[in-house]
């Protein structure tokens, strides 16, 4: 071993000259993305939890109101959106917590790559395993709530766009509360007010689709919110993670 370390260090002296060529940005991003997806698939039961929660909440409403299909189809856009939003919110607490506990979060921020990029990789992995399945499953629940068939496509696409925004904005809250022992309720308190624009535009767009109104501007607005959060949220979350590790 001692000899091995010596030869490695000797090679290292040569690598000093190429320090400008740092370990690749994409290399770090994809490695983190793959690692996080792999971790989520190792815990398959947890993977299904947001979906089951989503379906359960949607089931509660007809039970609490009335099995009246006109009533249900009227509230379906808002109901599906609120349920999906809560499902995303519940999954957020675990976004950084495991990494915080076992120290890999600390190591992630110590990597030479910019922290925001690596945090973005983690957020993308989170979206791929929560927001995407929720969006794909939503038409099924839409049928159960007698949502008109022609609006299913819009329901799915607003959920695809919107849940990505929810993951991004939620990551800031998860990063701020990751160092706190009971961060869960506090996380909801911080994040839910910030979620209202996404909810309003998401559910509103589906409602307009049911009525057959033109939708392009509203979808564009949702895209704009996604673009803004894509630009700002990973950096804010990275800054919040740094302070959570300090405190």
């Amino acid at each position, binding site marked *: 071993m001692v000899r091995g370390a010596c030869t490695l260090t000797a090679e290292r002296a040569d690598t000093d000259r190429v320090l400008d060529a740092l370990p690749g940005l994409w290399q770090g991003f994809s490695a983190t993305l793959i690692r996080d997806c792999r971790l989520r698939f190792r815990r398959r039961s947890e993977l299904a939890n947001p979906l089951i929660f989503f379906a359960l909440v949607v089931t509660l409403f007809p039970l609490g109101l009335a099995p009246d299909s006109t009533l249900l189809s009227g509230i379906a856009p808002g109901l599906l959106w609120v349920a999906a939003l809560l499902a995303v919110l519940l999954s957020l607490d675990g976004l950084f917590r495991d990494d915080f506990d076992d120290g890999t979060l600390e190591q992630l921020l110590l990597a030479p790559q910019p922290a925001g990029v690596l945090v973005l990789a983690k957020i993308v992995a989170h979206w791929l395993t929560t927001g995407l399945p929720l969006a794909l499953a939503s038409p099924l629940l839409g049928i159960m709530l007698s949502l008109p068939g022609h609006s299913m496509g819009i329901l799915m696409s607003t959920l695809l766009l919107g849940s990505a925004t929810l993951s991004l904005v939620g990551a800031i809250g998860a990063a701020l509360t990751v160092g706190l022992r009971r961060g869960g309720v506090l996380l909801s308190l911080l994040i839910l*007010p910030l979620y209202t624009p996404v909810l309003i535009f998401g559910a509103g767009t589906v409602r307009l689709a049911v009525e057959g109104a033109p939708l392009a501007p509203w979808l564009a607005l949702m895209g704009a919110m996604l673009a803004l959060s894509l630009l700002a949220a990973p950096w804010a979350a990275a800054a919040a993670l740094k302070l959570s590790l300090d405190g």
Partner: protein
Amino acid sequence: MWPIIHKLGSPKWFYTMSGRWLPFLWGIGALLITVGSLWGLAFAPPDYQQGDSFRIIYVHVPAAIVAQSCFAMMALCSLIFLVWRIKLADMAAGAAAPLGAAMTFGALFSGAIWGVPTWGTWWVWDARLTSMLLLLFIYLGIMALRGAFASRDGGARAAAILTLVGVINLPIIKYSVVWWNTLHQGATFSITEKPAMPMSMWLPLLIMVLGFYLLFAAVTVARTRNEIIRRQPSARWVRALAKGGRHGL
């Protein structure tokens, strides 16, 4: 050298200077509010549609304006604190948060009272009321986050980040709520579309707004001064202050 000046010099300087301003802030603020309320409640003419009930505007509007300005001030302080690590900015932001929440609550409460004679109900999902409600939740979230950290520095920086995220989000929340409101309700009565006010009505309102600002500033400064003492109880100048009272400085 700079960090030392920032950390230790500033609070002392602020404490000394603000001690001189504070009586004026209190005095002028109280004077303006007295004049404004007397004028608004007793001498301004009643509204031709709403009668005397419109007079609640003299509390409602100043509270709402100060509530929103307070958030802008907190955001500015948070930025200064995060970029230049000036702790005084954090103390001011922390001192202002409960006041902002109280002002927001005051605006909501007076709005609800005003709603009874004008809309016939305590609460409508009016765009302004709803966005004020969300603002109140954001204030409460910031205060809760600050309190949740065991380390004061950690809580301060977390609150600062959340405040900055909130200030980016507030306009988006505001416009989305306006859009949502028009989509759902159509034209209802809106406070925004009042007929233009005669000068005898808006001049007292202006005085009240100024008075609220000054009182807000006075309370914030006083709370910041308390916080300075609380954080540096062992600093030499604080001990001198405790011994000699005001003459110590």
